[in-house]
């Protein structure tokens, strides 16, 4: 499909058109601790952000989500579905996050279709932004998820100095910019994008070879590194794991959740709620009569890392995209890339 360009100062025209028709969410702060929230005008939008605390999975799999409400009347149940039909645009997502959404798509549309997820996904439009300033924790390049994007977007923006290059990735994308007078991108503009891509790749300092990650898991189930991480002094300059769950909660590909019912004081009306869960918490592996599949902290952190290496049940659907959020958020300074490297070295 054709590519266009827009002057940076004209971005307002583009955004204003979107705001007329959709709810728009985008990065609302610069820096690493940004967040994707509602944008009401161009002044709210900070496309120069580096990363967000919580990944955009919150738009498809909210931390807390009421699935349906129920009522018991004369012995019969009455069920009311909660349907969210809001159409929205996610503006300025980085390639790592878009790739993570593609993984979630696979997971939630497998054998069991999750209509709550799919409904939200159907109503979303993704305007991605190639990452020209990867942060110090990013290793998306190694995980084939960035810093530039090649699939999964409806519209893709690339910062080429005074302009943005606009590429269309789907019919949805084509439709929403219809009616706007945009200049066709020149060969020179596309060349500029290539250059930016090379520059961005060079800025990424954390490098891993993703091919040996699942193998690492297979060969190191009983490695002493897990005891170091769980109980002793940590690994490669980190403190031991706190099992606080922050890593998995901010992770764009961690989809594990818990489902429970709540009732009101009449004991007749209630709702079924889905809540984001974390394998780092003791209760996650708990079963009836007090059994627990992962009682020890070392087993929990090992499980999470293997899952991110693509070696757990989720396989590629839950494996890492290299966004670096877990490294940034860990109070113990645990760095998954350093743990992987330590495992490789100590083999």
């Amino acid at each position, binding site marked *: 499909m054709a590519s266009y360009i827009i002057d940076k100062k004209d971005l307002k025209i583009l955004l204003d058109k979107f705001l007329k028709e959709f709810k728009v969410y985008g990065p609302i702060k610069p820096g*690493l601790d940004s967040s994707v929230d509602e944008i009401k005008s161009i002044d709210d939008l900070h496309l120069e952000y580096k990363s967000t605390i919580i990944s955009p999975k919150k738009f498809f799999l909210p931390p807390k989500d009421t699935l349906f409400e129920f009522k018991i009347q004369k012995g019969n149940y009455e069920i009311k579905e909660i349907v969210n039909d809001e159409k929205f645009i996610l503006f300025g997502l980085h390639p790592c996050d878009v790739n993570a959404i593609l993984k979630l798509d696979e997971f939630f549309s497998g054998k069991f279709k999750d209509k709550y997820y799919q409904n939200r996904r159907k109503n979303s439009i993704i305007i991605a932004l190639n990452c020209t300033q990867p942060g110090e924790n990013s290793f998306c390049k190694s995980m084939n998820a960035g810093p530039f994007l090649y699939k999964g977007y409806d519209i893709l923006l690339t910062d080429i100095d005074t302009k943005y290059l606009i590429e269309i990735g789907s019919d949805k994308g084509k439709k929403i910019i219809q009616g706007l007078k945009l200049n066709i991108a020149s060969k020179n503009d596309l060349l500029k994008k290539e250059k930016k891509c090379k520059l961005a790749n060079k800025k990424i300092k954390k490098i891993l070879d993703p091919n040996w990650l699942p193998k690492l898991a297979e060969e190191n189930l009983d490695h002493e590194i897990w005891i170091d991480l769980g109980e002793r002094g*940590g690994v490669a300059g980190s403190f*031991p794991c706190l099992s606080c*769950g922050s890593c998995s909660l901010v992770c764009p590909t961690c989809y594990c959740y818990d489902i429970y019912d709540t009732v009101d004081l009449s004991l007749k009306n209630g709702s079924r709620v889905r809540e984001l869960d974390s394998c780092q918490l003791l*209760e996650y592996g708990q079963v009836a009569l007090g059994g627990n599949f992962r009682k020890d902290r070392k087993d929990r952190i090992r499980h999470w890392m293997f899952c991110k290496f693509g070696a757990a049940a989720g396989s590629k659907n839950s494996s890492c995209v290299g966004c670096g959020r877990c490294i940034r*958020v860990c109070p113990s300074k645990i760095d998954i890339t350093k743990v992987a490297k330590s495992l490789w070295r100590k083999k």
Partner: protein
Amino acid sequence: MAKKPKIGVFKLTGCAGCQMEIFRMEDEFLDLIKLFDISYWKMAKRDNDDKDLDIALIEGGISTPWEIEEIKCIRKNTKFLVAFGDCAIGGCIPSIRNWIPQMESEEIVYPDPSKICSTKVHGIGEYVKVDAELKGCPPHRKTILELLKSALLKIRPRLRQHPVCVECKFQGNACLITSNKLPCMGPVISGGCGAICPTLGRICEGCFGPMSNPNASALANIFRDIGLNDEDIKRKFRKYSGMSPEFRLEAGH
């Protein structure tokens, strides 16, 4: 309709804040008294009966020989005994005095301590079997309701013991430890509060007590790395749950 379950609310060594939290359930209070027969609650009513209780909510820890007798007596008269709040669970703030000689703390407070007969402060679990714990200083209204509703339905209450960090992430907050280098207790403290303090930019003080399986020593090392000295760290772990087995070492036992 079946007979309403009988509830008793008792106060031992505590500040009465946990009982106040029941009063603060303004939206649900009238529904609650329709469902339960509040048989004993000195703060709320004149005539009290502490016999044959279905549920007893115990606020406060044990700090005198009489309280030891009292809690044993309540246990005998109750089917389901709940440690209601941190004081009943592990002594909480009153237990800070356990780290100084009894005589010294008595002399600070009383002009003539010769009449005072008090013990070190412990949770009620030190003396009697406890059936459920409601964490918090005070417990959150939602968890009180969850326990009472579960009692009516005869199901296990959903009282999670995940760390404050989980609720902090649900709120979308930046981490006060990694982003601001502040000594937040969140990673070892049980949630249930909705991460109110960190959401307002203040560190977690630890008022819900230890989470399940906390790594207190790791957090103490992180605090040392941020620049706290050993005394500061001890004080932080002693403040709400110094008597808990999970925090004992870091609190300086």
